């Protein structure tokens, strides 16, 4: 009951000076909104970087044969059997999928158009997921196609454009080398990442490519996909351990294969985005602090201005706690209302893309910013409120 009374006094106090209250709230509002939006931008850029790295296949490891570097014994090549060993290993939970890869080069013909794709890849269907190749049109080839060595192919978007231009390639027959292939699907465009264009590719079942081009010997690479970006190191260790086993090598330093991953990229990503987010957060925190000082400032002015009123209230028997409560509530209301509006503004602002980054709101930042703003209101309001409560009634009444 006394609380509601104090709340009414506090609301009355705020309403008495609407412009000043609104401006003070604006300070807190800007602080809270800045924290939410800037952290969302930091988080958004982190998500964007993560996405672009994932698009390149952050989860993927590439195992390739070590070109007999000064080794006396002939380095054992990677085989389909190695891939099977990785795929069937039960003690490697970090490995999600495995795809052996052979590559060849040949010229593709469609009608009277002749074009040489960047590479002809012979692999298993798991390749698509591992290398993060998604189908845009048509379908992937299946395990069944692999088992039966069917002459089907999935084209990269660049290759499809070269051979078919605007025509729909799905169902059409093309000739690669001297083997006819039926096109079953076209991949989504990934975008070039440097020397080799991942979109300029023909993907076909492994045995078909081996039969037509490379022969049934070794494979060029084995693509391994880890269950998540964070587990690539674990997957890498698993792959290393299993292959050392199948190749019967005791000393890991003499391994006849090498595993490359994007983990270095991952680490770089983490450190840069973290620095970015921390910097943005610090700037936002400063503006929140400034908002808090604004509350102290305005509350001090209010207390000085209303010294006489405080004196009257004390003469009428207002206990110290009630005067303290009234002014503390006033400052807390300023911060709560300001922070509430700041949360709204922050969430609203996060809907727009800022300098090309789509902000992603961190829920903790909303709660945190709101909580800190309210705490700031209490903390920065307590000094002026205490000053008001400690005034002696006689001094307060004499104040002009």
């Amino acid at each position, binding site marked *: *009951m006394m609380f509601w009374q104090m709340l009414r006094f506090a609301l*009355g106090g705020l309403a008495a000076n609407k412009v000043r209250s609104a401006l003070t709230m604006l300070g807190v509002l800007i602080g809270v909104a800045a924290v939410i939006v800037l952290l969302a931008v930091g988080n958004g850029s982190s998500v964007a970087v993560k996405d672009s790295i994932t698009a390149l296949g952050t989860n993927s490891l590439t195992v390739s044969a070590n070109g007999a570097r000064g080794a006396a014994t002939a380095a054992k090549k990677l085989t389909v059997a190695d891939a099977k060993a990785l795929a069937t290993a039960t003690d490697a939970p970090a490995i999600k999928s495995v795809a052996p890869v052979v590559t060849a080069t040949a010229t593709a013909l469609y009608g009277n158009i002749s074009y040489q794709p960047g590479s002809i890849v012979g692999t298993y269907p798991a390749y698509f997921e591992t290398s993060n190749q998604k189908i845009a049109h048509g379908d992937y080839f299946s395990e069944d196609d692999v088992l039966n060595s069917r002459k089907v192919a999935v084209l990269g978007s660049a290759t499809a454009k070269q051979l078919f231009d605007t025509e729909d390639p799905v169902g059409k027959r093309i000739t690669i080398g001297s083997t006819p292939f039926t096109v079953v699907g076209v991949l989504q465009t990934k975008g070039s990442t440097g020397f080799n264009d991942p979109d300029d590719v023909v993907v076909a079942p492994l045995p078909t490519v081996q039969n037509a081009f490379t022969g049934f010997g070794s494979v060029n690479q084995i693509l391994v996909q880890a269950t998540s970006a964070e587990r690539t190191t674990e997957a890498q260790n698993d792959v290393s351990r299993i292959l050392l086993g199948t190749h019967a090598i005791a000393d890991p330093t003499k391994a006849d294969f090498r595993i490359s991953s994007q983990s270095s990229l991952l680490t770089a990503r983490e450190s840069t985005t973290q620095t970015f987010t921390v910097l943005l957060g610090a700037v936002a925190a400063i503006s929140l602090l400034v908002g808090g000082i604004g509350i102290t400032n305005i509350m001090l002015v209010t207390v000085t201005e209303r010294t*006489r009123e405080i004196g009257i*209230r004390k*003469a009428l*028997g207002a206990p*110290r706690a009630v005067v303290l409560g009234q002014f503390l509530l006033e400052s807390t209301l300023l911060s709560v209302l300001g922070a509430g509006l700041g949360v709204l503004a922050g969430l609203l602002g996060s809907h727009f893309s800022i300098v090309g980054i789509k902000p992603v709101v961190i829920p903790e930042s909303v709660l945190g910013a709101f909580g800190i703003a309210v705490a700031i209101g209490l903390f920065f309001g307590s000094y002026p409120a205490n000053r008001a409560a400690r005034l002696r009634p006689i001094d307060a*009444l004499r104040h002009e």
Partner: protein
Amino acid sequence: MTEQQPPVIQIRRVIKSYGHGDAVVHALRGPSAPGSGEPLGVSLDIEQGDFVAVMGSSGSGKSTLMNILGCLDVPTSGRYLLDGIDVGHLDEGQLSLVRNRKIGFVFQSFNLVPRTTALAQVELPLAYAGVRAAERRRRALAALTMVGLAGRAGHKPNQLSGGQQQRVAVARALVTSPAMLLADEPTGNLDSHSTEEVLSIIDGLNAEGRTVVLITHEDEVARHAKRVVRLVDGAIVSDVRQAKVSGPPPALGVGVGA
């Protein structure tokens, strides 16, 4: 009957001084001790139901006396018993309780809370006393009716005349039914018509048995009191009874302007 009751106010050898050492100034000092010249302090008893006017020119210590009587200020030395309670031993919280329950203030400059309606003004002491909203409203309206301002309950101070503001202040002072009404030059800022209005309300309150201590420097105002105490330089120089404590105030119903 009133003879048996203890005095509502008993002050004993109260001294109030400001400053230190050679610069010390006694706002209240009482008579000087023979020989040493040390101040002996002011002693005064006020009976239940009395109407006392404290008179003196500015600087005579009458406002200091009023602040001490109202528990707004504490004496440098001496004892003050209000309704039998030694106020000197109370802490801040208890003092605010005493101000709330036992004393009703009326100030020269009205001292209404700005931007607050008359009704809310009068409810204020009840709110601090923890009275429920409905009860508060009822009692506040009754008090406003008593001072003839029931129709102005929703007005804010800047919408009221000086006399009306002071009547709101009187209503606020009496709403808690305090043991004593303490008025510090209540008519100092009012025209003669409003002065009569406010004084007749105070007369009426005293006629109903409320103890009134009124500070003034005007003889016209002091004429309303049953007893007149004069202060000069912080000491009581005269103490004249104009009417019996148990009787009605002398000026009741014979207002000059009315």
